[in-house]
């Protein structure tokens, strides 16, 4: 039998790689260089249409939208990855402990994760932000907490599945200590499933961050953020549609890139 989807895997994967590659390149570049300064204003160039000078055109202050999108992209990617790093590691820890040991701890942790998971994520982040106050690190902390349950759920189910696998039984018979069983024996086996959920988590983090910035509770100016740009731009859709399309399509580009990439990996495994 032909390996399932083997013909297609490189199409998804290559498309995903190209898109994410470009996005990461621009994002990382944006950290320390942009064609124009992201805050330089020029009254003469207000709302210039996209041209060779300004690839994405200019906004209501005459600032170069392409530079601001690059800056925004780097903010979004940095926040996205920190949120994922935070929630994934917490997810692994909690998931492993509850999955492997079960009992009362498992019961309580699962009740809490159900409650947190049930709540619409943006709403929960909203409440957390109002506690912690605005600012980049609070956004990361708030979103980090909101996304922990999704990882706990996945890691826990994997640990429960593998907890009773024969080779784990044998490891116990050998007298391997529990911690080593958790992190040396079981953990490497859940990477393929875990990796896909990290990808999806990254997308959710980006969508949530831009959603929050759109609502004005995410990243605050002068930090450029795609969500904020989009909410400023929606008023000028008729005369300056590029102002809204540039950040909007960039978000779609990044998220689509990552989902294609994770789809590619899933099919190859």
């Amino acid at each position, binding site marked *: *039998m*032909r390996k399932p989807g083997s013909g297609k895997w490189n199409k998804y994967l290559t498309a995903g790689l190209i898109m994410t590659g470009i996005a990461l390149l621009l994002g990382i570049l944006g950290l320390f260089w942009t064609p124009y300064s992201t805050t330089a204003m020029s009254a003469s160039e207000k709302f210039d249409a996209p041209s060779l000078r300004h690839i994405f055109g200019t906004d209501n202050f005459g600032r170069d939208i392409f530079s601001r999108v690059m800056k925004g992209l780097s903010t979004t990617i940095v926040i996205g990855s920190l949120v994922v790093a935070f929630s994934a590691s917490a997810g692994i820890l909690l998931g492993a402990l509850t999955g492997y040991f*079960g*009992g*009362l701890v498992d*019961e309580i942790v699962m009740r809490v994760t159900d409650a947190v998971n049930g709540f619409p994520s943006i709403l929960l982040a909203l409440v957390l932000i109002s506690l912690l106050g605005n600012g980049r690190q609070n956004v990361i902390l708030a979103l980090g907490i909101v996304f922990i349950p999704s990882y706990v759920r996945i890691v826990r189910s994997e640990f429960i599945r593998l907890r009773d*696998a*024969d*080779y784990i*039984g*044998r*490891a*116990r*018979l*050998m*007298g*391997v*200590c529990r911690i080593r069983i958790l992190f040396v*024996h079981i953990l*490497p*086996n859940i*990477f393929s499933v875990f990796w896909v959920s990290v990808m999806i988590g990254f997308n959710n983090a980006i969508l949530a961050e831009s959603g929050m910035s759109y609502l004005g509770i995410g990243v605050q100016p002068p930090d450029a953020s795609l969500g904020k740009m989009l909410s400023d731009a929606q008023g000028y859709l008729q005369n300056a549609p590029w102002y809204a399309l540039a950040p909007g399509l960039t978000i779609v580009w990044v998220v689509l890139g990552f989902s294609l990439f994770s789809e590619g990996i899933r099919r190859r495994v």
Partner: protein
Amino acid sequence: MIKIENLSVAFDGPEVVKNVTLELKDGEILGVVGESGSGKSVTALTLMGLVADTAEITSGRIVFDDVVLREAGKPIDKALYRKYQGAEMSMVFQEPMTSLNPTVRVGRQVEEMLRLHTDFSNEKIREKVLETFEAVGLKDAETVYASYPHQLSGGMRQRVMIAMAVILHPDLVVCDEPTTALDVTIQNQIIELLRTINTKEQNSMLFITHDLNLARRICHRIAVMKDGRVVELGKTEDIFEHPEETYTRELIEAVPSRLKRRTSVFQGKYPAEEEECCPGRSEESLGEEEAVGGVEGQAFPPVVEVRDLSVFYQDGSNSLFSRKKRHAAVQGADFSIYRGESLGLVGESGCGKTTLSRAILGMNRDITGEIRHTTVRPQMIFQDPYSSLNPAKTIGWLLQEPLRAAAALDKSRAMSREDMEAAAYDMLRRVGMEETYFHRRPSQLSGGQRQRVSIGQALITNPGLVVADEPVSALDVTIQAQIMELMQKLQQEMQLSYLFISHDINVVYKMCDRIMVMKDGEIIEIGETQELFDNPKQEYTKKLLASH
């Protein structure tokens, strides 16, 4: 009369079936025997028109009573096939668990056969189904009719599948390993049922199996397939008495048969185990035995002694609310395992074999009674080679892990990295694998190779006692023989004792010196192998042993 004329089937390139020619005459059961990958199932599926669309008929054709159902070069005529499927020919599959739609009542699934091919009224259909259910031995057809698949036992489900297959009295019934997934006693009943149906209906049957003995008991003629070809075809007795092909001969020998008498490693010198010994007694009698020197006189100290052991397990989820209901899976077990001995443990699934073995290994601590070990860290060999090795690690790492673990627990056994590696290479050789496999991953090994590494991993710390839970039943017949041979070789070399669990009486006969028979959590009989086979005491043991 159904003819398969030099049929070849290819899947996107390589041919899996190569010009097979078979004839199915009315009233005759044709057996097709071969190992996995020999193409026997693909042949059957192609005959039934159920093979995947991606399959390509590269040569030959299938003729059903002079109607050409399928021919090379021409695409499958689905409409035509549908008229035949169910009405003229039907199929019974291997996995009764999954072959029925889990969310539809069993009665309605069988009714669908009638709804498709007849225009009977609802009452007539219902009555016909109940009638057929009785015919295939389902006692109260009414409740079976209304129940869901998961509410029936494996045997009952297979009877429903057979009812479905024969309800329209088709000319051909294809059975693909119909009994492999069932328990021994139920296997016999299903075989009998198929045989009576064949004689009563005088239809032709195609019986596909990997088990030569089973084919011998039911088939009139047998075709042996290997790598997609029919290597030998003939009457059942001719095949067994004087097989022409070397492969067929190999197959026949690999199957453990009880024709040859066996010699127990103890040559009859047993600590008096037969009478129901009371706990206090065993010391002195052992003492006197030990005095005897030499191999026969080898001291036979017990590796583990089990006294009045009952093992419990919790039912219900471990959540906060549900009360914990304790069930005794094993009651009052009394036996010992001696050094260098293979003690067999047989019984039907659910009789507590595995629970007992887990208790002995200390994996289940909810017990009453006593287990005294004299060796440290007994090990286990698992049934499924695919889940017995950690897929994320290399073979070398796997073989060294037990040494690392032992070193961590007991400083005296600490070894340098080189020694560990050398020990691993040595064990790899002893289980019959080349050194190149050291850096490979389990996914790159065959089932047999994996079981070899698993055995190596279990024995590298020289455990003394090894519990083998159905170690060979997941392997092909030829590979089974090699693994059993390996286990016996290692047993002699390392003075191991085995607790050998299996549902296959022949395997146990070949491997074990003594056999324990378990039923519903109790050990009903223990005895030396030949003695047990010659005159079993318990009624249940007779039924169990006779079934082969």
